[in-house]
């Protein structure tokens, strides 16, 4: 059975409070569910929760909706799609990359840089949102999955 649990109103409010504190996100107009322990997904499909579990009974659901974020130690880490989807609402904890850093980031490298911040930051280059990094004292750790990284040294992100 798929380990899926749709958030109730109060759970959604709690999550939104965290998203607001971390990134200034105030509203999510879709269904939110937890998939397994950490993953949070968004789902816009027109089907009831009851029907989803009935479907899982006979059709074996392998995936649902869009992976949007992970909750780690009470903090929210947005996926690339999560950051793109809510980019118009994101106001806080944004790290603006320059061209060289953007390339490093999309190559999957951590950035050796002091931001003066600790915790999750939205990584952004011009209009592009690259998901979240985790800032510690001297660096920003990279979470870009391998399949989404630039794969060659001469990678060039255009100005």
């Amino acid at each position: 059975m798929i380990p899926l649990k749709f958030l109730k109103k109060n759970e959604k409010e709690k999550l939104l409070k965290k998203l607001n504190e971390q990134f200034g996100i105030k509203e999510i107009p879709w269904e939110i569910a937890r998939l397994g322990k950490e993953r949070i997904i968004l789902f816009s499909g027109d089907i009831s929760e009851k029907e989803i579990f009935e479907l899982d009974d006979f059709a074996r659901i392998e995936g649902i909706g869009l992976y949007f974020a992970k909750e780690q130690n009470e903090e929210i880490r947005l996926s690339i799609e999560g950051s793109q989807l809510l980019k118009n609402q994101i106001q806080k904890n944004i790290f603006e990359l320059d061209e060289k850093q953007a390339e490093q980031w999309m190559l999957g490298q951590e950035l050796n840089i002091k931001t003066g911040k600790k915790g999750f930051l939205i990584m952004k280059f011009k209009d592009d949102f690259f998901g979240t990094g985790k800032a510690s004292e001297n660096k920003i750790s990279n979470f870009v999955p391998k399949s989404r990284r630039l794969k060659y040294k001469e990678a060039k992100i255009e100005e």
Partner: protein
Amino acid sequence: MKNPRRYEPKPLFLERMKLLFPDKKDFNSYLEILKKEPVRSIRCNTIKISPEKLKKRLEKKGWKIKILFENFPEIMIVENELQPGELGRALEHLLGYYYIQEIASMLPALALNPKEHEKILDLCASPGSKTTQMAAMMKNSGLIIANEVKFGRIKILASNLERCGVMNTIITKRDGTALCKRFKQKNFLFDKILLDAPCSGEGTIRSTPKTLEMWNIKTIENLSKLQKSLIASAIEILKPNGELIYSTCTHAPEENEEIIDFALKNFNVKIKKINLPIKTQQGITKFKEKEYSEDVKYSCRVYPQLADTEGFFIAKIQKLK
């Protein structure tokens, strides 16, 4: 290493294709285009970016972009030469701004024309090119059930849906026929179904010349049985007046017209004409000793030499009340 364009067509394959192209000139232009690499086509993922913005971005990289159809600005061709794999390695691809998809493969979803709030079944969904296209056409609303029977192919389907920001879809893993039977038992019906059936792939020779080496008539016969079983089960779970697109990337009539003929003769359905933005030929009504219903001519044969694409077959049927 063997030159990938050097696979020789088997004599029986050529004999059958000659029957499809009685005019020698057509047959020769078909053979000629098989030697040519397919054009580099992409589909702008309108869930994430507008075609205008994407075009501008790609042109800034030095790519020469052509929008092929005024009514479908999301369909683009990269006209300049690129390094091998460059389309897939580009940042815009990694960020999900476009999907690399052959033009002929975009046609089934255009023909199905899924609307916002409709309930759609994509019965053989992996790798997800048509699923992501439909999700974009539906503006991430309604519902898509994207089924795939092979576990290995589920991963690529899921990864493409994620990269494209698709949110209205549930992925299931069942044998297509069995899944439809269970939907029928539960009275879970669909407005529209895309049955992009597993096929012998004769239409993909330009991009995968090895298909010529793997081709054999037994596979076609076996696939034809599977395709009949799939279409029969899928029709059962269409809502009254619901529509089904049957498509393959092959030219073999046993996998195409014969399947539509089977549906028309055994179910309460009719075939509907399709308007596609490229030149196609109508379905055939006779192949070797077999004759098909006259209405089968309303299906579309997409031949590579007609519009510089891969080969495809597309038919739309509607369930009657």
